[in-house]
């Protein structure tokens, strides 16, 4: 019998995009049933959030003819997933047999209001099929080189990433007048960078956001000015391209 469980606690992977999961008591429940069809293994689950939002109506795992096939289904509910607003995370961790046979450890449906690159700055769904375990993901460090060859940004350069996001979002909003997702993004990235909460102004839903404090922090703490320059140039390039279009 297959066992698939849905984490009901804040998820590390989702903290990247989540403002503060402590204020989002996402109480996930799961019900699953199994059915056998011939020699195939089929598992069905449904998970809900606290609002009763049916996030995953039917997920099936099937092995047949030397192949695996995993389906993940959900329904979009505009009243619950909206921007700015809380994310609707759903992580399904697969059982040991599924992991061994498919190489997939889990799948996560992440609704997010937008993220780089520029074309993805709109509300959308990211569906991550993870090839490593939650434990392995939790052990990721910011040591140079872990993310790739020398020259790649690493975890420690993450504030520069934030700066880019802010600028791009601001630019985008100025020119399109769409609503921002800063409320969600603001502290999320600070949390991801393990920046102490007293180091930055806490965001509020009303938009009492101080960009100045953010920039001052980044400028005063970063040793990656070259990276900042590069990001600024990228921002300018994107902005100019968009304006001129």
């Amino acid at each position, binding site marked *: 019998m297959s066992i698939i469980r849905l984490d009901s606690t804040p998820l590390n992977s989702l903290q990247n995009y989540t403002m503060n999961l402590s204020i989002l008591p996402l109480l996930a429940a799961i019900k699953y049933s199994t059915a056998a069809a011939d020699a195939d293994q089929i598992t069905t689950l449904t998970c809900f959030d606290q609002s009763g939002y049916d996030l995953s109506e039917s997920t099936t795992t099937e092995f047949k003819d030397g192949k695996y096939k*995993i389906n993940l289904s959900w329904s979009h509910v505009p009243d619950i997933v909206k921007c700015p607003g809380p994310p609707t995370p759903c992580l399904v961790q697969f059982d040991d047999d599924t992991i061994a046979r*498919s190489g997939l450890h889990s799948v996560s449906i992440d609704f997010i209001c937008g993220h780089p690159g520029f*074309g993805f700055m*709109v509300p959308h769904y990211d569906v991550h099929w993870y090839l490593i375990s939650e434990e392995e993901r939790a052990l990721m460090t910011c040591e140079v080189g872990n993310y790739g*060859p020398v020259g790649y940004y690493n975890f420690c350069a993450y504030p*520069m990433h934030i700066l880019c996001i802010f600028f791009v979002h601001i630019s985008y909003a100025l020119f399109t007048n769409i609503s921002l997702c800063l409320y969600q993004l603001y502290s999320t990235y600070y949390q991801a960078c393990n920046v102490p909460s007293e180091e930055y102004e806490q965001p509020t839903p009303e938009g009492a956001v101080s960009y100045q404090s953010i920039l001052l922090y980044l400028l005063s703490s970063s040793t990656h000015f*070259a990276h900042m*320059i590069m990001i600024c140039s990228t921002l300018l390039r994107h902005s100019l391209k968009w304006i001129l279009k």
Partner: protein
Amino acid sequence: MDTEVVDDNGTVKEIMLNMPEGFVCGMTSAIPQQGLHCSVPADEPATPSEWTEPAFIMGSYGKGPVFVEPMGDLGFVTTDGKEWEMEPVYVGQTISTLPSKLTWSTNDGVTTVTVEGKANDMEYEVEDGVESEAEEDPVMTESTSDARATKVSTVVLAGFFAVIMVGN
């Protein structure tokens, strides 16, 4: 091996192994718990309005793939009849179970994302709970690193001049 540098008619070319051809990892894309985000830059929509089909992303950390990720905008979860599929072909594939087909469809208000691939039935054996066959631990080539560092330096310099020019 995670990357490979080949001399293609005198051109140094970087290839990300276990990823589709043309995939590169965004230099500012590192996300905690996920790693770098990699894709074909030319395939990314230039603006949100140009994002009409799900995009395919892969994650990389520790010189190996972390995740495969289809991303779909709201139009692909709110419009019935939407269908999308892709069959990625991985360069230098060393992980046999990588998804060989991904689909995204929405019907009757329900969105379904599917991954399919070769099952590990023949290669996986369990002895006292230990896998008998381990995936190859990829290693980054030094030449790749140097090439990347050179590329970064060039971009940084260009960015610096761009900022100065705009500032003036």
